[in-house]
C-alpha cells in the first residue's frame, strides 16, 4: 500500500476532487502554491464513493480536504483553511491580503464570480432553447464586464487582482478559465476576448499571465478533458444544475 504523503505538520492529507471542477482546481492551486504534498483521489460523481459520502455527508460534493482524518468542505472554507494552516511564515505568500478592507473586497468579487458569472456560463451549456442560450450569454458577458472593471480597481496596474502574485480572487476566477475554453470550442462563445477592440483587455492580459503560472500548468487539465466530461454529462444528465455538473 502506498505511503500517505504527510502535510507539513505530519497530519496526512488527502483531497477528494474532480480534475475539471473549478472548485477543485482552485483548492489544488492553493496547495500547489504552498508546496504542500497530498494524495489526490479523483471522484466519480455519478457513483459516489463511501469516502466522499462519509466525509461530506451534508452535500456529498467535491472538493473535500481530509487532514489528519478530519474533513474540510466548501472550497472557500478549504482555501482559507489551507492558507491559515500553511501560513505565510512557512511556505508561500498568503492568498488573502492582510488589510481587512482588501480582504472584504477580494471575497466580494469572488462571491460575485461564483454566484453571478459561473451559473450564467453553466446556463449557456445547458440551455434548452436558442433564446435561453442568448440570455445566458448576455448574463455571462455582463458579469465578466463587471469583473473587468473590478480588475482595474483591484490590481493597481499589476499583473493580478491581488497585485504581483496570485491571490484569492485570481484563483476563484482563474479556476473558471478552463471552461471558458470549452465555451469557445464547443459553443463559439468568447467570454474573455483577447482580440483588438476587446471589451475585456485587462482580463485578457490577466488570463494570459494566469495560465502561465506554475500552479495553473500543474493543476489545470487541457480543454479536451473538460470537453469530454461535458459530453459525458450531456449524455447522462440532461438539465443538470451547477452543483451536479461540477462538484
Amino acid at each position, binding site marked *: 500500500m502506498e505511503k500517505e504523503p504527510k502535510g507539513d505538520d505530519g497530519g496526512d492529507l488527502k483531497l477528494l476532487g474532480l480534475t475539471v471542477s473549478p472548485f477543485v482546481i482552485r483548492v489544488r492551486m492553493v496547495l500547489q502554491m504552498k508546496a504542500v504534498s497530498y494524495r489526490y483521489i479523483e471522484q466519480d460523481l455519478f457513483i459516489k464513493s463511501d469516502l466522499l459520502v462519509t466525509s461530506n455527508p451534508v452535500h456529498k460534493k467535491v472538493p473535500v480536504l481530509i487532514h489528519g482524518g478530519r474533513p474540510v468542505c466548501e472550497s472557500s*472554507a478549504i482555501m*482559507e483553511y489551507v492558507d491559515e494552516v500553511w501560513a505565510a511564515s512557512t511556505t508561500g505568500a498568503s492568498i488573502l491580503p492582510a488589510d481587512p478592507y482588501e480582504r*472584504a473586497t477580494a471575497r*466580494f468579487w469572488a462571491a460575485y464570480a461564483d454566484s453571478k458569472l459561473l451559473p450564467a456560463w453553466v446556463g449557456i451549456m445547458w440551455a434548452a432553447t436558442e433564446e435561453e442560450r442568448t440570455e445566458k450569454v448576455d448574463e455571462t458577458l455582463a458579469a465578466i464586464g*463587471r469583473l473587468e472593471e473590478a480588475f482595474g480597481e483591484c490590481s493597481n496596474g499589476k499583473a493580478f487582482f491581488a497585485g504581483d502574485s496570485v491571490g484569492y480572487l485570481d484563483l476563484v476566477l482563474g479556476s473558471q478559465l478552463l471552461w471558458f475554453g470549452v465555451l469557445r470550442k464547443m459553443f463559439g462563445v468568447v467570454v474573455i476576448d483577447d482580440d483588438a477592440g476587446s471589451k475585456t483587455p485587462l482580463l485578457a492580459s490577466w488570463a494570459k499571465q494566469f495560465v502561465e503560472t506554475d500552479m495553473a500548468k500543474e493543476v489545470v487539465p487541457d480543454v479536451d478533458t473538460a470537453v469530454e466530461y461535458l459530453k459525458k454529462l450531456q449524455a447522462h444528465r440532461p438539465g443538470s444544475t451547477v452543483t451536479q455538473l461540477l462538484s
Partner: protein
Amino acid sequence: MATAGSGDELKVLGAWASPFLVRVLFALQLKGLRYEYVEVDLKEKNELLLASNPVHKKIPVLLHAGKPVCESQLIVQYIDEAFPASGPSFLPADTHARAVARFWGAYVDDKLLSSWKGIFATKDEEENAEAVRQTLAAADALEGAFRECSGEKLEWFGGDGVGYVDIVLGGLVPSMNVLELAVGIKVVDPDRTPLLAAWKDRFCALDAAKAAMPPLDRLLENAKKYLAEISFKTPASK
C-alpha cells in the same frame, strides 16, 4: 461602549425588516461599536445606496470611513477582522473549527434560506410544500451542526460564547418567529430540534440581539400584508 476609532465613523444602510441587517447590527452590538443607522426605502432610488453598492443595489451596506462593505456575511467577517481589539473574536482560534464555522455559515444561506424563499416563490401548493420540507430538513441539519460545534456547554455554535454561525443564523430568528405566528410553520421546534429551540430563546434574551432585532408586532403585520398580497395558502403539513 467603545468607539469605532478616531475619525473612522461607521454607518449602516439597511431596511428595518431585513434579516441580513439583523446580522450586521447584532455583530456591531457584540463588538460594542457605535454606528449611525440609515433606513433605506427600497422602493425609491437612494443615491447613497446606489453609490455604495452599485453591483447589487442591496442592503445591508456597512460604510467604514466612507468605504462600503457589502453582503451581510462579508460585513460580519469584516467587522470581526477590522476590530480585533473590540470584544471577542467571532471565529474560534482553532483552524479546523474555523473551517467548520465557515461551512455552516455558508449552509445557512445556501440551503436553509434558499429553501425558505421557495416556500413563497410560486402559486403551486405542491412546490411550496416541498420547500417547507426542505427548509425543515435544513434546520434538522443545523441541529446536528449545533451539537457538533457547541461543545460541552451546548449554548452557542461558537462554543464558549456567541460566534459566527450564531450571528449568521441569528439574523433569521425574527423571521422564524414571524413564520410560526403568521403561517404556523416552525423552522425550529422544541420537539424536532430541541437544541436549536433552546438556542433561539437564549439568542432572544441577549441584549445585543434585542438591540438588533426589529419589533415583532411590526414585523408580523408586515408579513401578514405580504402574505395577503401574494394570496399565500399555508401548505398542508404531512
